[in-house]
């Protein structure tokens, strides 16, 4: 699932978009790439232009042993959409999930929309034009524990760890923004691609899978200093520094993918558990806190992202040399979240969250936060253990988890004829 080489993207764009589209795009990109940038601002401009050309034509393979959108480097834009099934029977549900895969695959691959009779409604809304550029689109499908209740005869196939997300300490979960039968994570580089995809997917399953809640997210731009530097969350701190390396297949097998055996139903192998949490961040309150207190709560320097006392983001915080918390407080976020001991190594999770902004609340306060998205092999061993530790962090005053849920993300399609969730129905 390694991202395609950028040059390859541009080649693809020629085939996909036609000469006009490519000409228009490379007018902005090529000169910036050719000449050396004269200032930091121009360097940023060149970087952005080159990225824009590459991204619109980039396709992430939909099919594979695992679903896309898990190890895929985070695209800039996302929508997380939870749906409830109103299907009268298992067959209807099964067909809806099959259609969901087929449409998601088409959109991820991109291509020209079919032309139908002029008096028919168009098959595609067309808001991206006559050709849907893939734009790095991934559609990741998950199943909630409620789908395994007594409605569809799937109870015996329930993934062993799939429960309704519990209320953790300090949670204020709104039922209308939590849980759901099916979860769809849509990610792409451009907002319009995400909006188009959501619109096409809900149309595909209309009458069978009905929207329950949704949340739009965005990633902070790449503002350096290096391409590896973690992006900032809305508390202004770099987020994701300690994420496990997605290119380390053995590590992913240990932390992310469900293996065969271990009491899990056979169809779940190659899948993973998604913990989705809409975490409201009380940003005005945060902005009224001294920088030192902010940094003490997190355990890192805000600007560089370095652990306190260090100089570089990816430095090891060396808790072993700081047993009393003189350098990094014992209840600092990074220390509780990942104590970096041998015993806690197997608790690590793969975070892939997005910032969100959804206007104001009833008190006129900005409704901003984090759409926390974490993939893990066993939420009880991993996410829930970490979350219980975080109950003691001082940062809890500044955040309120308000929604989300636990979902099982089935394995990938395995090939162009497969569909997400087929294994569940094959064994049901």
């Amino acid at each position: 699932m390694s991202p395609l080489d950028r040059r390859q993207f541009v080649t693809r764009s020629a085939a996909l978009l036609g000469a006009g589209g490519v000409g228009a795009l490379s007018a902005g990109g090529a000169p910036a790439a050719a000449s050396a940038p004269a200032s930091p601002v121009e360097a940023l401009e060149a970087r952005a232009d080159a990225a824009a050309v590459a991204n619109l034509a980039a396709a992430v393979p939909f099919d594979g042993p695992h679903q896309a959108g898990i190890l895929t480097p985070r695209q800039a834009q996302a929508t997380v959409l939870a749906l409830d099934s109103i299907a009268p029977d298992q067959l209807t549900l099964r067909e809806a999930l099959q259609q969901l895969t087929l449409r998601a695959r088409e959109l991820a691959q991109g291509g020209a929309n079919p032309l139908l009779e002029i008096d028919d409604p168009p098959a595609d809304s067309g808001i991206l034009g006559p050709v849907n550029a893939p734009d790095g689109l991934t559609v990741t499908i998950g199943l909630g524990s409620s789908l395994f209740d007594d409605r569809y005869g799937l109870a015996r196939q329930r993934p062993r760890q799939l429960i309704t997300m519990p209320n953790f300490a300090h949670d204020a979960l709104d039922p209308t923004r939590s849980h759901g039968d099916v979860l769809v994570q849509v990610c792409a580089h451009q907002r319009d691609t995400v909006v188009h995809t959501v619109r096409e997917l809900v149309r595909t399953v209309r009458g069978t899978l009905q929207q329950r809640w949704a949340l739009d997210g965005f990633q902070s731009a790449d503002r350096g200093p290096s391409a590896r530097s973690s992006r900032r969350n809305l508390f202004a701190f770099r987020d994701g520094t300690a994420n496990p390396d997605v290119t380390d297949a053995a590590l992913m097998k240990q932390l992310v993918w469900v293996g065969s055996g271990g009491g899990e139903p056979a169809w779940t192998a190659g899948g993973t558990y998604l913990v989705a949490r809409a975490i409201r961040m009380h940003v005005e309150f945060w902005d009224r806190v001294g920088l030192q207190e902010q940094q003490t709560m997190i355990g890192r320097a805000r600007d560089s992202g370095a652990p306190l006392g260090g100089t570089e983001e990816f430095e090891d915080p060396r808790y072993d040399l700081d047993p009393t918390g003189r350098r990094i407080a014992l209840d600092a976020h990074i220390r509780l979240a990942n104590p970096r001991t041998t015993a806690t190594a197997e608790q690590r999770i793969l975070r892939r969250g997005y910032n969100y902004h959804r206007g104001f609340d009833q008190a006129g306060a900005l409704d901003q936060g984090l759409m926390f998205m974490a993939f893990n092999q066993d939420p009880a061993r991993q996410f829930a253990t970490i979350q219980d530790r975080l109950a003691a962090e001082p940062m809890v005053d500044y955040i309120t988890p308000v929604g989300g849920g636990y979902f099982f993300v089935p394995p990938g399609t395995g090939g162009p004829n497969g569909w997400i969730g087929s294994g569940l129905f094959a064994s049901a």
Partner: protein
Amino acid sequence: MAAAALAAVLGIVALAALGVGGGSGGATHSFAAPRKLTPLQAYSEQSAIRAGAAGVDGARPAPDLVPLPASAFNRPFAVSRSYDARQLAVLVPELATLRAALKRDDRAAAEAAWQTAWARYLRLGGVYGEFGALDQQIDGTPGVLPGGTHDPSFSGFHRLEMGLWTGAPLASLLGWEARLSVDVYRLRRFVGHVPLDPLDYSARAHEILEDAQRDLLSGTAVPWSGAGVVGTAAGLDATEEVLGTLRGLLDGREDAIEVVDTWLVRLRATLDSIRRAHGGVWPANARLTQLQAEQLDGTLGGALEALEAIPGALETTLPPPIPPLPAPRPST
């Protein structure tokens, strides 16, 4: 970089021309007197200092980290504890009024009595962070409990609120009222010697109203009654009480207290005018007109921007230096 520095300097010149340089306002106290700047002034000053220029009134500001002795808080704590004891003494008959309304099955009177009693409890704002489990029993919200509103340990004011505003038979609430009264009785024995910490206490001066904005005016903590406006008014009372005990320490130490006073007067006037406009009763959040909501939210926001300076002005210790990490090694 040169352009940024120039812009910052120009900003300072513009501010100086507007006469907002701000003196240190009669600083006769023995403590150093850092200044309270508006957010725009603070931003300009920080930009200028970063660029190597001077602060808004022409000189680099002295660092404002000038610790107070912890003993300076002894008197504020004593005053605060006796205030809280008096508030709890008044809460007892207010709960009796609620009990009587429940017994005679008068929902309107019970709702009004609930509001009065709950607002009384909120006036203990200076210390309620120190009540621990007892505070959860008295004023806890169900969201944090594993069973939510069905959790057997969901009790206190918000359990009564749920029953009152969702049409539960009033007689069924008598048990919850009795339990609340017992918890308040236990608190009365405890409140006179509740442990207080200078840093936490001065943070309360800022954070009582932060809580009002985050939990009450948003409706989060009062989903059934929507009683955020009366809760904010009670939070204002509590804030003024805490600030009153700290006034001697703040006087001359910062302009902050003057700015805060101005905003709290405005906030009081806004709350009063809203109450008058609703015929002398506190309206539920949802009954505020858009203009009233904007006035209240905006004035509260302005007050909070001023209050943020209070905890920093009252530090009792200098932050210890952070030891450097040993020779960096790349993490894996």
